[in-house]
């Protein structure tokens, strides 16, 4: 309940809403019929609409028992605090009907509320001598320094969490000057990558500032996880018992989780590779669930490979080799992946004729694909689309899967779509004209478009804040965009109008992406939650909560069953769409994660962000398997080639870099014991294949065409 105090009004309403929608969404997903909308989902939740909140809250009231009364008081208190007077009255009336007396004196309510807050903070109340903290911390340092080399690195992991919590205890107990001197004395010796957090921490100098601060809230509501080997753990325990220092022991007990593993202690590089999370590393047990990372079996479509290819058929040799290629291609398609989820695990939209045509196109194009990896690899060709006269106002870019459309979002909240092919962008004909058309005709999709309206680019207006992310649907008729105004909008690329405004995120929405099969899309934002939406529902069907800070980027798995998110808490999480559970947590980034990419085989995940390192994660083995260093500024985009042999990255350092991903996979030593235990293994091998600098143009988006031509989108910054 204390969480309520830390979300603003709308956020907490969402949490209430979540619980009620969750039960209904199971059936919602299974039923493809959109007319059969579940009850709870139909209840529109407008943030400031008090009557709706009453409806929502009236449900739980009927369940009121003695112990729930407390909860009700808190809700009431919250409503009063936010001046929702009408709702308060309604709730009180409802409660009375249910036989609960709420109309007690308001003082008791407020008393409760403050109690809630203080109960959370009270973990810090401590009557120990404030000056003993420095001695105690120095003792811990001594313990680390005097330990054997093998354990030194492991124990050194403790110095940061113990430091921050000691500091917070001092602040909480009003020993401001002591806290300050404690901070100055010891902050210098901590690892570099903690500096960002330390500067946030140093800003907090009074107890009053601890309340309502997101960062502090994350620290004190989560135990800091330190992974440590059995031996090191025993050593630490022995040492602390010997010295009889209850202060350090207390801190470790109440604020730190020691995740103990069997076997040899980790090396310094291993520890450093996976360190950096806001609350330490992921616990082992968090990554236990099996993930069906394989690709779905392609539906059987009769792909007419033989008929058209008029150009090459004249040459016998080439057509023969082509045939062989086709055979390989077909055989590959038909094999069932043992790691794939069942086709019906997540209901997918039915395949339409247009989708079949698209699949045939993909298959044809992929035959002409250039190999960028392997022995006979060709160095990549890069076509760069540069925005001119944009003056750095471009904030989001996406290219459609068939590379025919480019959409860009701007700082001044408009969206523009360009056609990258000679085909112009046309609007659909008016309803009157459409009614005259023969709907059974083969060329209906062509005839329904108005040829007079063809232009090279179209502008979409609707958002009222910077557009942070865009995604074009696989069928190229829809576009979702997310913005600073807290909304996600669905646009039609046939009528060029806004179809739906999805409200739910209250704060800026940092990322959004269409699912690989359409129909579903995901969004994530500053409210630390990622949401799964279905285009025909105005409410999310899943919410993925667990990140400790903003969720900065999101990526749909190729089989539509999983979602990866990257966050400002420096962790990457993988979520199961079926039940909304977090199935993988990876730590290792030292700064916010800004982009993610799934490898085409679905097994590996690449992530990168402000700390400029690109990390490769193995979903099956649950470990980090590679690290690409080389960028000098934030990495904004990642893209795997269509065959998954190379990884391209681009960012604010104005370069496109291409990395040998295949080699990384070959280099993985599956017999390595450390790896089996989930320790990151990083080689010093340089995987950089090529490096293409641009002229003062940061790279915003990378996209491999179906033939493996790399498209990059950059924005020219006038050097003025």
């Amino acid at each position, binding site marked *: 309940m204390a969480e309520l105090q830390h979300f*603003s009004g709308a956020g907490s309403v969402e949490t209430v809403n979540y619980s009620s929608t969750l039960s209904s969404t199971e059936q919602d997903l299974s039923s493809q019929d959109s007319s059969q909308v579940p009850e709870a989902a139909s209840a529109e939740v407008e943030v400031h609409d008090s009557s709706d909140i009453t409806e929502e809250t009236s449900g739980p009231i009927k369940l009121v028992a003695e112990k729930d009364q407390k909860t009700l008081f808190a809700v009431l208190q919250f409503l009063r605090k936010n001046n929702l007077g009408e709702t308060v009255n309604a709730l009180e009336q409802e409660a009375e009907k249910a036989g609960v007396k709420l109309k007690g004196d308001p003082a008791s309510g407020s008393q409760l509320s403050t109690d809630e807050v203080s109960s959370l903070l009270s973990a810090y109340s401590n009557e120990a001598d404030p000056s003993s903290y420095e001695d105690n911390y120095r003792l811990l340092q001594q313990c680390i320094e005097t330990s054997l080399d093998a354990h030194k690195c492991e124990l050194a992991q403790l110095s940061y969490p113990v430091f921050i919590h000691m500091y917070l205890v001092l602040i909480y107990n009003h020993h401001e000057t002591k806290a300050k001197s404690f901070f100055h004395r010891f902050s210098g010796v901590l690892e570099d990558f903690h500096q960002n957090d*330390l*500067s*946030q921490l*140093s*800003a*907090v*100098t*009074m107890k*009053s*500032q601890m309340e309502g*601060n997101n960062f502090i809230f994350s620290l004190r509501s989560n135990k800091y996880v330190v992974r440590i080997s059995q031996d090191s753990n025993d050593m630490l325990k022995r040492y602390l018992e010997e010295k009889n220092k209850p202060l350090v022991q207390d801190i470790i007990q109440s604020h730190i989780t020691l995740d103990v593993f069997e076997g040899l202690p980790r090396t310094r590089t291993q520890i450093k590779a996976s360190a950096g999370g806001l609350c330490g590393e992921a616990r082992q047990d968090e990554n236990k669930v099996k993930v069906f990372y394989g690709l779905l079996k392609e539906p059987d479509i009769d792909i007419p490979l033989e008929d058209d290819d008029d150009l090459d058929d004249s040459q016998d040799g080439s057509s023969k080799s082509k045939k062989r290629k086709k055979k390989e291609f077909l055989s590959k398609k038909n094999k069932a992946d043992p790691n794939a989820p069942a086709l019906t695990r997540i209901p997918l939209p039915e395949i339409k004729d247009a989708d079949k045509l698209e699949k045939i196109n993909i298959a044809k194009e992929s035959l002409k694909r250039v190999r960028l990896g392997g022995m006979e690899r*060709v*160095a*990549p*060709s*890069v*076509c*760069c*689309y*540069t*925005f*001119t*006269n*944009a003056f*750095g*106002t*471009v*904030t989001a870019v996406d290219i459609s899967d068939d590379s025919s459309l*480019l959409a860009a979002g*701007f*700082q001044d909240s408009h969206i*523009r779509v*360009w056609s990258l092919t000679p085909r112009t962008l046309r609007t659909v004909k008016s309803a009157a004209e459409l009614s005259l058309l023969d709907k059974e005709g083969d060329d209906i999709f062509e005839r329904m478009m108005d040829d007079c309206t063809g232009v090279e680019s179209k502008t979409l207006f609707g958002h009222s804040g*910077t557009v*942070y992310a865009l995604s074009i649907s696989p069928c190229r008729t829809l576009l979702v965009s997310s913005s*600073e105004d807290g909304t996600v909008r669905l646009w039609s690329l046939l009528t060029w109008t806004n179809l739906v405004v999805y409200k739910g995120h209250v*704060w*800026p929405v*940092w990322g959004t992406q269409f699912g690989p099969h359409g129909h579903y899309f995901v969004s994530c934002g*500053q409210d630390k939650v990622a949401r799964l939406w279905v285009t025909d529902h105005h409410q999310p069907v899943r919410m993925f909560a667990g990140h400790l800070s*903003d969720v*900065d980027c999101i990526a749909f798995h190729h089989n539509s069953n999983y979602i990866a998110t990257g966050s*400002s808490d420096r962790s990457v999480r993988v979520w199961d769409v079926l039940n909304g559970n977090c199935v993988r947590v990876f730590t290792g980034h030292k700064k*916010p994660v*800004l982009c993610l990419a799934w490898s085409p085989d679905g097994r590996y995940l690449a992530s990168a962000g*402000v700390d400029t390192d690109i990390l490769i994660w193995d979903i099956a083995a649950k470990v980090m398997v590679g690290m690409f260093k080389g960028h000098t500024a*934030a990495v*904004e985009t990642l893209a795997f080639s269509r065959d998954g042999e190379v990884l391209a990255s681009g960012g*604010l350092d104005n370069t*496109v870099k291409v990395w040998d991903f295949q080699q990384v996979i070959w280099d993985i030593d599956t017999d390595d014991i450390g790896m089996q235990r989930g320790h990151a293994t990083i080689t010093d091998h340089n995987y950089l294949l*090529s*490096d*293409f*600098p*641009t*002229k003062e143009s*940061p790279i*915003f988006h990378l996209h491999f065409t179906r033939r493996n031509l790399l498209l*990059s989108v950059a924005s020219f910054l006038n050097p003025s």
Partner: protein
Amino acid sequence: MCNLALMAESKTPGFWTKNCEKSGLAAVSTDSIKAAAESIGISQLPDQVSVRLANETTFRIKEIFQDSLKFCNHRKSRKLSCQDIDNALKSKNIEPLYGFVSKDFIPFRFSSGGGRELHFVEEKELDLNDIINAPLPKITYDVAIKAHWLAIEGVQPSIPENPAPEKQFSIDILKKGESKEPKTGIKALKSCHVQNNNPLISAKKPDSSSTSLVSLKPQFTHELSVEQQLYYKEITEAAVGSSEARRAEALQSLATDPGLAQMLPRFSTFVSEGVRVNVVQNNLALLIYLMRMVKALMDNPTLNLEKYLHEMIPAMMTCVVSRQLCTRPDVDNHWALRDYAARLMAQICRSFSTSTNLIQSRITGTFCKCLHDDKSSLAARYGSVAGLAELGPNVIQSLALPRLRVEGDRIKNILESPLLNAIDRTAAEHLRGLLVKHCGHVIKGLRQPPDLSEDYSNEYGYLGPLICQHITKLREQEAHKSRLLASAGLNRPAMGIGSRPSLMSTGSSSSQQNSSLSSSPNLDHQFSLNSNPSSVGASSRMTFYGSNSKTSMFDGS
């Protein structure tokens, strides 16, 4: 809170306390709080309150900035903008500062008076009429997309849309930590060693030179074309190779070609590194070739060596005053190299010495230091005297004459010592000859005849009588000449042209010169002989040079 944030926005420099050494410790000063309180009519704010407020303000401002960084990240920008701060305020449910835009980076003005310092935002009063009647600003161009090839099969085409190749080159250098160019220089040096068939040199070649050369690389920021690289390779090989004809052509090219400016840094490095390596190995021939390269570069009117003097001067200085320049100092004629390098040095002084870079005084200082150092060898002393002499009679008069007696005693001691060896004797004799000639020239101007041997002996010590003889001879020659001129009624013939060794002539013409002008020994020719030790004995060269050239070498200067 909103008020505080507003104040925070006007993040005046004075608003923060100045004693914030670390960026993380910046804090709002209590004075700022008091000033703000006064501005809204609260005077005499208690200290405790202002401290608390300052603390709180600092915290809130930091919080806002941390949040605004997020917005900056998601805008895919490296620069924090006002918009980001507005967005951060908005997400904290604080009204943003509408319309806070400024052309300046820091739009604050400073003012002080009455013991107080203040920073403020300048807000001019604007006349609405002016704004309404002002011509409309130009409509900005529409955003457009332009496609170009960033790379074609891994190669970046050189089109205006792509960054210039120089930039890439420098990136390559930084990445690899070494450049290609100096390597070719070293290779050229190596190849010439092989051509010389000198097993000593090729065997002894120290590895450290190549690494130290690599460490010089950041100077090479532009790339040479393939043609230029070929030219560089050819020239450096020819200039230090065994074929005199090719060398002459190479030097001719260096002295006359107009387009070498871009390669000058490489040549300069080639020379300085070449000297460094070869002086250790006492390879006289190569040192001479390198000095001739310097001469050729100096003669080229299109080149300005000024930027590369820091490499050239030490190399040349080494060739003048080094303790040992050849493997057999008793017979090899390293004196000619010292003289030659000294002349080049003088030329450098004349061309480039200014009152700011003080090249001449620094060079003179180096020579003097060597001369005054009791431990320096005779060969080094010879070099410094030669160097000083090339700088003109005034320099000799002020710097060498006072040392004449000391030097004389030293020479006397050496020559009369029972343990005299051939090396010392040759060195002492050369030094004696040099001192007599140059000092004699100067003293002649200082003293009036009659020249008495005793007077000279008293004044200049051991060398006195010799100088006296020299001066007497000079005076006789002068008198003879003036008589001849008077009788012929002609002007003095232009001796300088013939007597100055022509360094750039080709092999065929040099032999002609040699025969026609017996007074000018051709340095080129001589060095070409020198490079083939097997064909001509070193001692014969010694006599050839010693007997013919000595006087003529200095006539030009």
